[in-house]
């Protein structure tokens, strides 16, 4: 291949798609009259076509999974954040619960002072609230951080938080008269439970009221 050095260089320029128009013209003219160079060029093109023909192999289906399994573990924080993003409702609900219980805990811990619901005829003595004999207390009585002695009558429910109902015969009708329920709350979980129950009751009341008012409006219509 004596003549070829120059033309082989042109061939590679051509294959790199970087050949100038003059070189291309020169190469074409030369290929027409030189069978040796023609053969060389055809062999080049053939080998490249063969190489290109074996492209397009594909991996196994579980390739990505295998890679993902071999990656170093991601930070927990991110996994948690992604979980939060994907479960907004659960996130909101659990956040609500945490705040709820937290606030109840703190309100349990604060205020060790005696407090009592405001009814005019209740008497407060030290940390004991007394329902005097012969008196009728209207409405629910709530005593916090103190005891309740019932000598008279209560027309409603009794709740004593962090204290006791003092009377030899508590819970009996003769312990003065209580028309509603008597409840003593001394443990924090009871306290939480009590609040949740209250909230549920209020919610039910609210719905019942709105239903009633709807009923009324419907009736008026």
């Amino acid at each position, binding site marked *: 291949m004596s003549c070829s050095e120059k033309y082989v260089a042109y061939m590679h320029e051509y294959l790199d798609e970087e050949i100038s128009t003059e070189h291309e013209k020169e190469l074409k003219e030369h290929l027409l009259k030189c069978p040796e160079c023609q053969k060389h060029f055809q062999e080049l093109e053939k*080998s490249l076509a063969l190489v290109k023909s074996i492209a397009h192999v594909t991996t196994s289906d579980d390739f990505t999974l295998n890679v993902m399994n071999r990656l170093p573990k991601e930070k927990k*924080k991110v996994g948690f954040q992604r979980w939060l993003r994907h479960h907004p409702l659960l996130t909101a609900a659990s956040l609500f619960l945490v705040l709820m219980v937290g606030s109840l805990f703190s309100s349990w811990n604060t205020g060790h002072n005696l407090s009592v619901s405001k009814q005019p005829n209740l008497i407060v003595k030290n940390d004991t609230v007394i329902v005097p004999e012969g008196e009728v207390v209207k409405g629910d009585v709530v005593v916090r951080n103190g005891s309740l002695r019932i000598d008279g009558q209560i027309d409603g429910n009794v709740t004593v938080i962090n204290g006791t109902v003092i009377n030899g015969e508590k819970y009996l009708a003769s312990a003065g008269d209580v028309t509603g329920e008597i409840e003593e709350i001394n443990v924090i979980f009871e306290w939480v439970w009590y609040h949740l129950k209250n909230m549920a009751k209020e919610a039910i009341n609210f719905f019942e009221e709105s239903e009633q008012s709807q009923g009324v409006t419907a009736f008026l219509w």
Partner: protein
Amino acid sequence: MDAIVKKRIKQVLKGDQNAYAEIVEIYKDKVFQLCFRMLGNRHEAEDMAQEAFIRAYVNIASFNIDLKFSTWLYRIATNLCIDRIRKKKPDFYLDAEVSGTDGLTMYSQVPSDSALPEEEVESIELHETIQREIAKLPEKYRSVIVLKYIEELSLNEISKILDMPLGTVKTRIHRGREALRHQLRNV
């Protein structure tokens, strides 16, 4: 597609591992093919391709987001394969001639597991021949030829992937083509 890849990379940078799965999905065949043609062995190639993706993930913080991700990924894969080729002891090849026989290779001693239609056998044999001839190329020519003719990348991209001047890439491609011409002209 580049926009999707960039977005996923940013998510990965924030630590979201799942975003990486999509990147793997996009490039897995390309990277596997590169490794397969460089190494000539499916099993080894799959291992190397996985390793390339894992290295890319571990070092993703050092990737410049303004550059092309594929270039960076191919560079990792190519370097891994070149390392592997250099380390590998060429002690046992199926296509090595069995001593004392005339032109018999180990291939002829491996029973084929199923009877295939003749055409298929022929095309598989042709593919194997081509693969073997590519594998015979010196590694410095093999990488440029595979990147150019199997992965169909531009000379510019190849020079970036191999971190080598464009002139060097061209010289290697020219020599690689001449070597292939010699090896494949009688196929």
